[in-house]
């Protein structure tokens, strides 16, 4: 019986891995086709020219929640105000900061309180006041001062209520937006005859790159370990995963770090759920459900070009916090939306995406740990067939390397600035080295954090959103030479959410 269980599990894990390899391969092919199509029919200069002159150019609101960001907020708001697009506004939501975030904004941008007729279209904590600048140069800036709602979702909802344009971008204060990002984001909306309800944009790590006055000057892969692995992970997720899923219109998530949404649809589904740990995934699924239930054809595309740089967790502790929260969010999301799984009414989302998420995102850590435990048991009982073990290990390892080569190729193909330094340390060489080390130095931790997140969800342990200390533009010692800080920054995000409030 024991042998049967071990054999069965061994075969199960093998074919499970094989199926995953097949899905990734299909995603790569679909992604490549998708990228070719996007690349060949997109001409930024032509689009810019027409949108600048046209009365039909849709406006975009950039919603930026900020909590205790006094060190970086001014430089980043200035960066957002200088984005290239003919019709946009920037809405900073001060989520009850306890430091000088609001005071700095008021003094730097000459803000005064205005009697804004605030309408709570989606739920958020009470708004104290709304401020506008007296200077014409900052007329597109609105600052919402509200009571702390405990989550980013709550602050984003307040920003959505104030937004004036039909589309909005939800981003973070520590994000640097690419100069032409808004043109890139609006293009899928304009060029589709189906309704585009959201657009997912590619984000990269800001560590390692050089920014001057909030503008990218020199893009380089991070030279510190964990941001480097995360860069690789982001590239794989955006350029292969999301691009691939987008080709069958089944994106699971438009990142809360930088996502583009149709405001009307977001309001119709009730905005972000501030009780969710994966509010971005939750919002997208609710939007998809809404469109499917009304029978309106819709699309959620993915943009392969980098539109935004964000600062990823720079050490294992911060990474652990982030990934534990993501894992909690994933499991919560799966329970909330379980009715979609294998429901033909939701087509590719119900029949393909949700089962994939369940099998390969949610269960993967358990299967991995189970497999590892079984392997140790087999070693101890001296019943391992080492030839088979080595062959299977090499299969997975070489496939991982292959996948990393593919993302380097995709990145080069879509025109990433890394391609200036193809064979230099700044370019793909580091990414390939990281790909070789990732299974040993990074992936085990990610599996551990995921399991920790699942465990804390099931045991209902008191979960708090803790400090996510960002180093800002200053960077670490190793990267100091390449950063030119507009203002040195140490961002401290304290977001606390008690389980009892949920």
């Amino acid at each position, binding site marked *: 019986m024991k042998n049967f269980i071990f054999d069965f599990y061994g075969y199960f894990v093998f074919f499970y891995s094989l199926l995953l390899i097949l899905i990734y391969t299909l995603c790569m092919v679909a992604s490549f086709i998708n990228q070719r199509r996007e690349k060949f029919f997109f001409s930024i200069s032509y689009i810019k020219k027409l949108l600048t002159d046209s009365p039909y150019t849709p406006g975009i609101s950039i919603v930026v929640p900020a909590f205790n960001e006094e060190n970086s907020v001014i430089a980043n708001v200035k960066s957002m105000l200088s984005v290239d697009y003919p019709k946009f506004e920037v809405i900073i939501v001060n989520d009850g900061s306890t430091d000088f975030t609001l005071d700095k904004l008021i003094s730097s941008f000459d803000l005064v309180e*205005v009697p804004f007729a605030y309408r709570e279209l989606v739920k958020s904590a009470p708004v104290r006041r709304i401020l506008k600048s007296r200077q014409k140069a900052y007329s597109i800036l609105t600052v919402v001062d509200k009571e702390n709602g405990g989550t980013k979702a709550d602050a984003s909802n307040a920003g959505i209520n104030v937004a004036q344009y039909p589309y909005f971008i939800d981003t973070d204060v520590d994000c640097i937006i690419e100069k032409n990002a808004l043109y890139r984001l609006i293009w899928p909306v304009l060029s589709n005859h189906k309704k585009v309800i959201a657009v997912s944009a590619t984000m990269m790590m800001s560590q390692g790159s050089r920014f001057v006055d909030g503008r990218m000057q020199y893009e380089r892969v991070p030279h510190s370990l964990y941001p480097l692995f995360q860069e690789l992970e982001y590239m794989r997720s955006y350029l292969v995963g999301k691009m691939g899923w987008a080709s069958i219109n089944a994106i699971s998530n438009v990142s809360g770090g930088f996502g583009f949404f149709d405001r009307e649809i977001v309001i119709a589904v009730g905005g972000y759920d501030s009780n969710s740990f994966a509010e971005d995934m939750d919002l997208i699924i609710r939007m998809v459900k809404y469109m499917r239930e009304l029978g309106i054809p819709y699309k959620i595309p993915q943009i392969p070009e980098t539109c935004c740089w964000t600062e990823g967790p720079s050490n294992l502790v911060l990474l652990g916090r982030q990934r534990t929260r993501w894992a909690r969010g994933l499991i919560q999301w799966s329970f909330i939306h379980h009715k979609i799984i294998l429901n033909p009414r939701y087509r590719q989302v119900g029949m393909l995406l949700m089962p994939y998420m369940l099998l390969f995102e949610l269960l993967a850590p358990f299967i991995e740990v189970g497999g590892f435990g079984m392997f140790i048991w087999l070693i101890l009982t001296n019943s391992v067939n080492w030839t088979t073990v080595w*062959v299977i290990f090499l299969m997975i390892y070489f496939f991982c390397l292959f996948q990393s080569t593919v993302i380097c190729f995709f990145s080069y193909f879509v025109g990433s600035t890394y391609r200036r330094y193809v064979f230099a340390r700044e370019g793909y060489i580091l990414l390939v080295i990281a790909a070789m080390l990732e299974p040993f130095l990074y992936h085990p931790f990610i599996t551990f954090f995921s399991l920790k997140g699942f465990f804390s969800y099931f045991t209902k342990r008191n979960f708090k959103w803790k400090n996510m200390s960002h180093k800002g533009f200053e960077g670490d010692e190793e990267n100091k030479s390449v950063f030119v800080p507009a203002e040195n920054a140490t961002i401290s995000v304290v977001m606390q959410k008690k389980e009892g409030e949920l």
Partner: protein
Amino acid sequence: MNNTILYGFDYILYYYYYYYNVFIGYPLVVKISIFVILVSILISAILFIEILILYMGKIRDRKILHYLKVTYRDKIKIIAVDPVVHSVEDIIVSLNYDKKKPLGVKQKRLFTGLLALFKVELSERLNRTNYHNIILAFDLIPFFEREIQFAKPRYRMRMLMWIRYLEESVSSVVLIPQLYNRNPQIRKAAQATFMWDSSADPFRFFDNADFDSNFRPWDKIDIHNIFENRLRWNKNIPNVTQWIRAPKNEIVKPLFACEIRYWHKKDECPYLLDTFFETNNMELRCEIAKTLGYMKYVEAEQKLISSYTAQPEKVKQAVISSVTMMQSGLSLSFLCSAYFDAVDISTKMAALEGLFDYGTQGRHEFELLELRADMADVILFEHIKNPLINQQKREIA
């Protein structure tokens, strides 16, 4: 006796069959794993070579671009901004361009991009005739035509865009086959170029029954740009009422109502007014109401007001905005009752905005209403009066 059995290619065959036989003897799990490993290594190697090829291609392009810039950039810029007209022959001589050794296809593609860049850089100072003559001097028109006919879809598509960007034209004979291209992107771009340039029934596509099904928001921007360019080049734009009143293509109709407003075609107002009452397309109704207001077609005012109560909220707001724009001085009581009767806060605000912008009388009425307003409504008055909030609103409008 010679012991050597294998020669040349036989070695490859021998080892192929040897490994093949070893391979089929393995268990299924090992076979699959080896297959995945080999495929991964092979494709990775191909991709690295592909990156290398793309990299070399980039370097080659950069060299060509550098050559073009060094050889022609400064001279072209001087000619392009010179108020004195240079003939094609003069340009050939002054650029020292050898027609017997013309630029290659790749060079011409890059050169076209370079010309487009100059056009942006020199936009205000550009002498159109000289700029056109530069294009003729390099024989770019036949090149454009060849690209549209025979190039790969990506270059074909790009060329259709470049032609409009450079404000050049190509023969209809070249464009017509592309109007029915299987690729919808190319078809759309060809149709846009054809509408932009042709005189032979250029707007025939609006009559197609399926024009709506492929209509994208971008087409609105494109069509507007086409009308704008045609007028700039003293070409006529069509009377769009025919398509507004046609029974098909409901999605595109609001665009035409907007275009009437934009080009200030007041003659078409009576037809628009009739359509306002006939159509069930609410978006079209909104646009018609705004257009009638923008063009101060006061004959429509009472009719719009009388239909007000039966309209959905968005149309109500459009009627309020229309009446406000007309500024006839006769609708003060209507705006007041619109404020009192509004069930939707956006309609209420639209009515108040209307009053605020309705001349001295309207402003006076606004102030009187503010004095009588209940606590919940006071903020609406404050909001509308505030110049810092309205500054942005005006810009949006």
